[in-house]
């Protein structure tokens, strides 16, 4: 029934727009092809895009890299999911990246990428992303465009209000969506209320290497923590989290979590809590969570299980945590570039609520509270309210900024982007996206200094936007030019998986740091070889280690005998190219894993467990050269009890 209403409204809005659109065309007179819109997104062959956009892949578990304004897909970066294209999660070196306290988890639901910042401005060092399902935070290098680190978040479930960073990348923050028993225990579900906890986790980031370490976990009341953003400028040192289900319902949340007129935005003075724990505060709790780090020098990941986490009870740090009443299950929790306004998008509301940081401080100073929730003071809605945007839309979700005093909010139910003015709350423009928009992204739009030329709206629905491809369509994204007074829809393009959020930056910030090759003389892989002359094979019982070289256009060795059924054969392949964009691949017949793609100067390992006697080929999977098709080899597999000696050769 609901769907029908939505469909009808969409249809009506669509029809209205069509009519309006025709009218505009009539006035314009030159037609779409005569307009300058196509030129605005056309990036001629050999030219480059102005900006990078990193779109979350949602249930693909990965991150996709696009160019703006062309909407061209440059790369899919594997983060939480195995990725046969590169062998991520399949190669021996990268399997540890997906280790968790639940064992090897080959998938996750990647939601909210956020680029590292210095002084509140994007610095282009790393991009962080959260795994929603099995709570994890990943750090991806913007030099190699590879996932370098994944840390599991204990005491969390549905890691949704993540992975947002403070303005000097001091912390990447991970808030739980689902409250759970902390520590986990066998207990009746209906005893949720007052017993389950919502952990907000502050993960410290080492500034030199980016390495992550949980500094503390704040064990909040058992609400659902939805999204979050850091304070910036004057509000730096605070973090704001939207909550819903302050009712603490544990069933049919669709109804039961919508009972309260207002939920909260939790304002957390993390500097105060940091000081508390630095002075020995907090309680160490037994835990079990994985910390996986990829070392660029050894080209290998290691996984370490950590056994302890420092927890903080909100009651132990008075004056650090307050609740700001915010209508109707707020989703987006966004802070304007100056750090004054905290914007709550009540997703069941028509209006957007804007809180004032200054007013919040004044109310705290005056101790004007409207009761408390589990001992945490609740401020008066009217005392902290800066204004309310009478949007005329329905279902506000998420807001970003252009740095020119404007905010842009998506509306899911009314399928539109609404531009409004900070300070006056006046709506100045609105554009239909037609297809149920979720998040939007302005490059740098959640920093002190937005690069506000384009806006990307990420729609949840595609339907007839492209040529049909069966029941499931890739989601549609739309690029708007926001440089003028009115937004202008330029283009739409398909995305991969389900983008929940995105981050973007000017190309100059990132492109010059992009790595071209790994230097062979810096390759410290224990099974790497410095040149093809070192190629060899070693047997240790049933384990066979093949130290193999690949360079255009052959493997060394390429004829191997003496392998037996039941062996575990490890191909350690070093790519001896020192030439940008010349990877080699490797695949072996009947291998229960994916190919591996080895970058120049890199060593990767692929496991093969031969089960059948015979002579079996392997080959390079990447069209590396004119003689790529000649890049192959054979392995003779003998019976388990064979006496054939191990031997190997090339062109003998």
């Amino acid at each position, binding site marked *: 029934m609901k769907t029908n209403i939505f469909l009808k409204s969409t249809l009506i809005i669509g029809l209205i727009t069509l009519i309006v659109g025709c009218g505009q065309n009539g006035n314009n007179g030159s037609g779409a092809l005569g307009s300058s819109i196509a030129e605005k997104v056309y990036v001629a062959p050999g030219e480059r895009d102005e900006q990078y956009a990193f779109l979350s892949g949602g249930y693909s578990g990965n991150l996709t890299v696009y160019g703006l304004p062309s909407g061209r897909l440059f790369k899919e970066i594997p983060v939480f999911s195995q990725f046969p294209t590169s062998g991520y999660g399949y190669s021996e070196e990268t399997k540890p990246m997906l280790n968790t306290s639940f064992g090897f988890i080959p998938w996750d639901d990647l939601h909210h990428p956020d680029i590292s910042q210095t002084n509140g401005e994007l610095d282009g060092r790393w991009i962080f992303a959260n795994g929603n399902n099995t709570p994890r935070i990943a750090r991806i290098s913007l030099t190699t465009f590879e996932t370098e680190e994944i840390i599991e978040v204990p005491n969390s479930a549905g890691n949704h209000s993540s992975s947002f960073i403070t303005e000097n990348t001091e912390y990447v923050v991970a808030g739980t969506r689902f409250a759970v028993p902390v520590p986990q225990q066998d207990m009746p579900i209906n005893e949720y209320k007052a017993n389950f906890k919502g952990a907000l986790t502050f993960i410290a980031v080492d500034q030199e290497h980016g390495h992550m370490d949980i500094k503390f976990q704040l064990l909040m009341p058992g609400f659902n923590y939805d999204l979050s953003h850091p304070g910036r400028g004057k509000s730096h040192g605070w973090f704001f989290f939207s909550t819903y289900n302050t009712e603490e319902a544990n069933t049919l949340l669709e109804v039961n979590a919508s009972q309260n007129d207002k939920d909260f935005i939790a304002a957390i003075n993390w500097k105060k809590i940091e000081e508390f724990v630095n002075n020995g505060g907090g309680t160490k709790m037994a835990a079990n969570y994985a910390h996986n780090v990829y070392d660029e020098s050894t080209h290998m990941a290691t996984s370490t299980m950590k056994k302890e986490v420092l927890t903080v009870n909100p009651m132990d740090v008075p004056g650090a945590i307050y609740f700001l009443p915010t209508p109707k299950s707020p989703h987006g929790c966004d802070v304007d570039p100056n750090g004054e306004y905290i914007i709550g998008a009540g997703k069941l509301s028509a209006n957007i609520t804007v809180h004032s940081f200054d007013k919040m401080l004044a109310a705290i100073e005056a101790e004007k509270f409207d009761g408390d929730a589990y001992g945490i003071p609740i401020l008066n809605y009217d005392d902290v309210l800066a204004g309310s945007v009478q949007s005329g839309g329905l279902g506000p979700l998420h807001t970003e900024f252009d740095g020119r005093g404007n905010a842009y909010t998506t509306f899911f139910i009314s399928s539109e982007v609404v531009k409004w003015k900070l300070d006056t709350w006046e709506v100045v423009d609105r554009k239909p996206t037609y297809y149920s928009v979720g998040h939007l992204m302005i490059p740098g739009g959640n920093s002190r200094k937005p690069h506000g030329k384009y806006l990307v709206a990420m729609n949840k629905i595609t339907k007839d936007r492209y040529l049909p491809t069966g029941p499931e369509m890739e989601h549609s994204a739309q690029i708007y030019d926001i440089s003028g007074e009115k937004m202008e829809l330029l283009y739409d393009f398909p995305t991969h998986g389900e983008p929940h959020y995105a981050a973007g930056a000017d190309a100059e910030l990132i492109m010059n740091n992009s790595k071209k090759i790994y230097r062979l003389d810096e390759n410290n892989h224990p099974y790497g070889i410095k040149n093809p002359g070192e190629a060899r094979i070693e047997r240790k019982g049933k384990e066979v280690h093949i130290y193999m070289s690949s360079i*255009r256009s052959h493997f060394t060795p390429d004829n191997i005998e003496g392998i037996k059924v039941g062996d575990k054969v490890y191909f350690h392949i070093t790519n001896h190219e020192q030439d*940008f964009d010349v990877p080699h691949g490797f695949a072996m017949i009947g291998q229960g894993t994916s190919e591996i793609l080895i970058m120049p100067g890199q060593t990767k390992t692929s496991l093969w467990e031969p089960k059948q006697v015979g002579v079996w080929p392997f080959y390079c999977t990447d069209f590396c050269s004119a003689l790529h098709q000649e890049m192959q080899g054979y392995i003779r597999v003998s019976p388990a009890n064979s006496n054939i000696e191990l031997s190997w050769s090339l062109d003998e």
Partner: protein
Amino acid sequence: MKTFKLLTAALLTLLVCACSNTSQTGSDASSNDAQSSHPQGQASVVDDVSDPNILQVAISSEPHSTLVAAVQAAQIEHVLVNAGPLTVFAPVNEAFDALPEGTLENLLKPENKGDLATILTRHAAPGSYDIEVLKREAQKGRKLYMATGDYLEVTIEGGNVSVGGARIVASVPASNGIIHVIEQVILP
């Protein structure tokens, strides 16, 4: 697919026409700009991190200035930066000087670009043949397949390796293959 391409072409044509109607500078100017920014494809990639490729090695080698000039005149730079791999037998300047008088000047004329390209291409073998592999060619009696389709004989005399009668005096590895410096031009 063909229909789609035709449609795209038609649309692009329309677009260009439309642009030239509305734009003062016209579409020709902008498409020239696009071309000039990357005039040589892979040959113009700025990369000071990778090992130098065959073209870059040749350009940086003073004794091969004639060869480089000939490559540029024949407009085959792309071949020497291609993923290859290629083995290039690179005659030194003196080798070109030793050609009959007027030969080089004649080949460098624009109308003889094709002939020049053929002669230069006869100096390149697909594949990466370092000196050890070349010796094996001689020992195993394998002939070297050149990019023009010719087969050249590899011989060893007193420790010197020659290809098509031209003696190799030095070898320089490159990111996309290898260069063997030779003392004479390999003519058919």
